[in-house]
């Protein structure tokens, strides 16, 4: 087993994975910049549909980078990508359906 270990140490190339590390830091800066922009928008854009829409789009962009790059899903097989994405699409529908339901409850009580 000690031999196995040595084998690897000698094979280690300091440049190995350099490109991957570059991609990781790039993703970090993208996430940081989007989060900072969210703060700017939180205090400059008036509250309304536009603001909420911007926040939702930014959140999805952040989720795309975290799942795609950090969790490596972008580089997996297509079957795996769809196995994860399809259930999430149904969840998005559930969210929409129950927001409408919440609005109907509001109308029934206060409308």
């Amino acid at each position, binding site marked *: *087993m000690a*031999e*196995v*270990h040595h*084998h*690897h140490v000698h094979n*280690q190339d300091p440049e*190995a*994975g350099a490109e*991957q*590390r570059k991609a*990781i*830091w790039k*993703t*970090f800066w993208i*996430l*940081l910049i989007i*989060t900072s922009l*969210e*703060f700017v928008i*939180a*205090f400059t854009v008036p*509250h309304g549909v536009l603001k*909420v829409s911007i*926040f*939702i789009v*930014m*959140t999805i962009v*952040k*989720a795309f980078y*975290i*799942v795609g*790059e*950090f*969790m490596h899903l972008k580089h*997996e*097989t297509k*079957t*795996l990508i769809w*196995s*994860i994405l399809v*259930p*999430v699409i149904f*969840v998005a529908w*559930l*969210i929409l359906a*129950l*927001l409408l*339901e*919440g*609005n109907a*409850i*509001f109308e029934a*009580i*206060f409308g």
Partner: protein
Amino acid sequence: MAAHVTTPGAVEPKMWLGGIEPMKASYGKLMMWFFLISDTFTFSALLVAYGTARFSFPAFSGNHEDFTFSNMYWPVPERVYESVPFLHGVSLPLVFVGIMTFILIASSVTMVLAVEAGHRMDRANVEKYMLWTILGGFTFLGCQAWEWSHFIHGTDAGSVMKVMENGAWIEKTIFGANLTENQYGPPAFADFFFFITGFHGTHVFSGVILNILIFFRAATGFYDKRGSYEMVEKVGLYWHFVDLVWVFVFTFFYLV
């Protein structure tokens, strides 16, 4: 064992017992993905319930500057979360939760750097980045403990609210929040705060425990002997998921 010695780090551990590798992912990694999907459902259920409750309550309609706490409408989040440790009485909306978000994103970066070091069988760097990730996790938990404590104890003045007690409406000053009383808005708002951030915090906590286990096993040479650092990757998936959930909690609970 012989096969391992001659071809260290080769793909054998990835093969499933049927001799193939479905979706080109190892058994453990695929099961982690399926677990995360089920966990997505749980968190979605909480956020969906939050959205439904919020849409069924009146929203505050006036100017944000004129906002005061009342249980008659849903509060404006930036006026609820505006405290920062050591800066008592200073209004700094969303600053502290912004710091928490940054800490969690940073710890996700160190985690993925540990995974990358694991691919190269670089034990020293796996140890280094796992320690940073663990530190980030503990810092986040510490921040959350402070935030909860502040939320529970409330502001100096509290809020005067009309509440139903023993069958009669009375005026009462409420300090902070628990599951039945809430100085910031309707009690449901505090309930969702405790359940959603609490459930997320529990995930962070178990993530830190798993990270410590991975650090320990890496540091004692377990993965070198096994010839694969894939465990770092699997726990990394969980840790990124926790970060991902926070991104959604941050938007839907604190920003919108």
